């Protein structure tokens, strides 16, 4: 195997440490120079070398490309991956070109054999869109010099007028939702311990002589308080000199001091 070029190309993935400059939830963002991507960089290098895009001096360009990547101190993780893919592609093309042609395939058309062809096609395709981007840039710059009338206050702009029944419904639902939360929080704050409940009930029985259980339970705001009140009533009857009186079946139960 012939080795026409003495230089060797190494690409040490461990040496090229990537730095994370900005980290957000889904993107690691660092800019690589002014290049929008590996194809952009490649085009730049080809132009810098004043090379013909249809006959890229692949060894020189690959060298330049790798040198450029090494120069970059801050690498965007996501972009860097794309740049490295291109580096690998270049090296692959270069090694293919170094290999002697398969003598059995010599009859094949030369152009089809050129390992650079696919890359050239991609570069040409990309460059069209790069020019289109330039055109868009010019258009938007021009357009920024034109001003249309500012919006006038029509019903559309006036939020007070433009509300529909559905808007009202939406707002209402929101209020209801918020209210539900508020109520929940209130209950939490007013939660009373069993000891306090017993103390409170005992005080009321001592003061009034008797307490209607029905009225007492109705004062409770939540299921939890109700349960606490019920247990408190049981406790009072068990520990204190209080008896339960019921005037008729299924009627109200009265706690009465003995």
């Amino acid at each position: 195997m012939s080795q026409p070029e003495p230089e060797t190309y190494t690409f040490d993935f461990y040496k090229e440490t990537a730095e994370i400059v900005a980290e957000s939830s889904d993107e690691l963002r660092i800019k690589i120079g002014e290049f929008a991507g590996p194809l952009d960089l490649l085009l730049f290098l080809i132009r810098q070398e004043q090379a013909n895009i249809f006959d890229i001096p692949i060894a020189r360009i690959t060298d330049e490309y790798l040198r450029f990547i090494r120069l970059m101190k801050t690498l965007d993780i996501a972009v860097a991956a794309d740049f490295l893919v291109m580096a690998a592609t270049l090296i692959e093309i270069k090694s293919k070109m170094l290999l002697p042609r398969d003598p059995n395939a010599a009859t094949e058309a030369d152009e089809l054999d050129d390992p650079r062809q696919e890359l050239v096609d991609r570069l040409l395709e990309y460059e069209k869109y790069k020019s289109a981007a330039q055109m868009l840039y010019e258009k938007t710059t021009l357009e920024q010099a034109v001003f249309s009338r500012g919006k006038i206050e029509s019903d559309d702009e006036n939020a007070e007028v433009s509300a529909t029944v559905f808007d009202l419904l939406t707002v209402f639902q929101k209020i209801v939702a918020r209210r539900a939360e508020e109520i929940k929080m209130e209950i939490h704050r007013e939660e009373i311990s069993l000891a306090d409940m017993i103390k409170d009930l005992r005080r009321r029985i001592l003061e009034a002589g008797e307490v209607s259980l029905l009225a007492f339970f109705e004062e409770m705001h939540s299921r939890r308080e109700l349960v606490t009140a019920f247990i408190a009533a049981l406790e009072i009857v068990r520990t204190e000199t209080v008896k339960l009186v019921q005037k008729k079946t299924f009627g109200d139960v009265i706690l009465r001091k003995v």
Partner: protein
Amino acid sequence: MSEAVEEALEDAPKPTRDLSELVAVVEALIFVADEPITTKLLADVLDEDKQAAEAAVEQLRQEYEARESGLQIRVIAGGWQIATRTEFHEEVRKFLRTRPSAKLSLAALETLAVIAYKQPVTVPEILEIRGVQSASAIKTLLDKRLIVAKGRKETVGRPMQYGTSKDFLIQFGLKDLTELPSIEDFEDLVS
């Protein structure tokens, strides 16, 4: 001005306006419209046929042109719009105290170019042309409402397809997508 329109509408079913009247009322409508107003909408509102509306707008446009007005009547995003002339952008900007809005990055512009010409197009297809991940550029373009999702492609993974929006036409001063030069035209520039 709205009175004039109402009066005109009350004249229905068959309004009889001469051209100068029609030009005047068309001017009023283009002036109040929030978005570029189409010839069809003008014709519908005025109960005129489309040709008459078309002729009126064209007449109006030429009148602005002829008297070298500070305003221009122009077609944008498929509709008519009254806008200031580019020559006066410095003065207008000084008065409005605005600066040219933040420009799109190179990556975003490239991505937008690919989407504009290849729409509807998927993220992998954009990657193929640009040779670089375009996720953040696409997010920027979506945030600026220059592109919109155009359904999913019926292929492996059903990727989302993107296309340009009406805002794109407005912000780039385009009548419609056909006003974009053909992508093949850029080929000559390349070689």
